[in-house]
């Protein structure tokens, strides 16, 4: 139950982040599409984790406070999501004993 609450909260935060950034990335809308693709390919465990909530919350707060660094926070989120890609985790799980 707790993970479902976290998942819902993380989805809300992610949507808020994308909506905030969309107005500031109108010259490069593909950047947000790329972020959403990364999000879609991430591990469900990570997407419902406290770690992701903290990262999202930090990026959203900073993006709202520093509009001139929008791409910095989008890039940070993309990097984190890439590190937790579902495919990568599955491969690692097979390799590890």
């Amino acid at each position, binding site marked *: 139950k707790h993970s479902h609450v976290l998942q819902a909260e993380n989805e809300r935060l992610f949507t808020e982040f994308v909506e905030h950034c969309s107005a500031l990335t109108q010259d490069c809308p593909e950047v947000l599409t*790329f972020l959403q693709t990364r999000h879609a390919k991430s591990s469900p465990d990570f997407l419902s984790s406290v770690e992701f909530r903290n990262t999202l919350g930090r990026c959203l707060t900073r993006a709202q406070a520093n509009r001139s660094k929008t791409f910095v926070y*989008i890039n940070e989120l993309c990097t984190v999501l890439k590190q937790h890609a579902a495919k990568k985790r599955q491969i690692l799980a097979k390799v590890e004993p």
Partner: protein
Amino acid sequence: EVSRVCEDDDDDDPENRIAKKMLLAQIKSNYSSG
């Protein structure tokens, strides 16, 4: 294809400019390999 408009970077913040270039490079890379 990544818009050429995005290549003409006029951001004032150097860190933001670098992050933008990194993102566009990743998108191009994914587009090329995909």
